[in-house]
């Protein structure tokens, strides 16, 4: 079931992190209103969190966006010779920051989590997009690129009395 407070939290955190870290300004869009991912080769990066709750935060974005993201974060001109590892590292770090901010935003400062290292995973687009209907996610256009951030909880061990949503 989609939790609208969580969706708002995702929107807020994604905007803040991209703005402050990469000087990019995400525009929230309705995923069902015809956002197209067809023209892009996409990558999926995920972090698993465990502690008071257990789940994943994932980012799906066009591979070609990673170069711009890396250049913006590092304050550099875009390399003519693309360093794919460096570009992916920048995406992993963005996801790392989003995850830390999102967990605090949703569960508060008292909750304690351990995070996995961000992992690039194989993306089965058909499976991924059809699974979104049951997940908390937000879709943004950043520059001309569509980006999806997904928050999913696998196991809840948390006492809800201190949750702010």
């Amino acid at each position, binding site marked *: 079931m989609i939790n609208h407070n969580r969706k708002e939290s995702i929107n807020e955190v994604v905007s803040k992190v991209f703005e*402050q870290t990469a000087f990019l300004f995400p525009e929230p869009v309705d995923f069902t209103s015809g956002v197209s991912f067809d023209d892009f080769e996409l990558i999926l990066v995920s972090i698993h969190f465990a502690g008071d709750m257990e789940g994943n935060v994932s980012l799906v974005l066009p591979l070609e966006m990673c170069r711009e993201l890396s250049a913006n974060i*590092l*304050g550099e001109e875009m390399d003519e010779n693309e360093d794919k590892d460096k570009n992916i*590292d920048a995406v992993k*770090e963005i996801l*790392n*920051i989003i995850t830390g901010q999102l967990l*605090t935003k949703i569960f508060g400062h008292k909750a*304690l*989590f351990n995070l996995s290292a961000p992992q690039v995973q194989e993306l089965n687009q058909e499976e991924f997009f059809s699974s979104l209907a049951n997940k908390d996610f937000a879709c943004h256009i950043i520059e001309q690129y569509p980006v999806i951030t997904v928050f999913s909880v696998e196991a809840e061990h948390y006492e809800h009395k201190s949750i702010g949503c």
Partner: protein
Amino acid sequence: MAFNILIVDDSKTIRSILVKTLKMTQLEINQIFEAGNGREALECLHGNWIDLVLTDLNMPEMSGIELVNSMAADGLLKDIPVIVISTDGSAARIDELKGKGVREYIRKPFTPENVGQIIGKILEVAHDKSQSQGINQ
């Protein structure tokens, strides 16, 4: 006095940002060392004079917390100031780290100005302390 600073983070991106941030400050920096995890950091600390450690928490092989624990248990390293720079916003984690002697906790995303100010403050205190110890000895 010029300082040697060790940056510990598994993300090359963050290490690059911190190197740039340090170079933008007015601090007199002699050398900046980099490590990708706590184990590499300890190797660097045992082979070089380091005035300040900036470390992430969540790293492969040896985490930032394990690094802080190892430094605290080592007579030669225990007085080197440590600043943690992490995405973790848990109050319990921050309290735990402060209890282990971590001087400051900076949460990502950070601004270069904020990082520069905090490092400047910590190094000034460390410098004054070493000066006064030198005079007293």
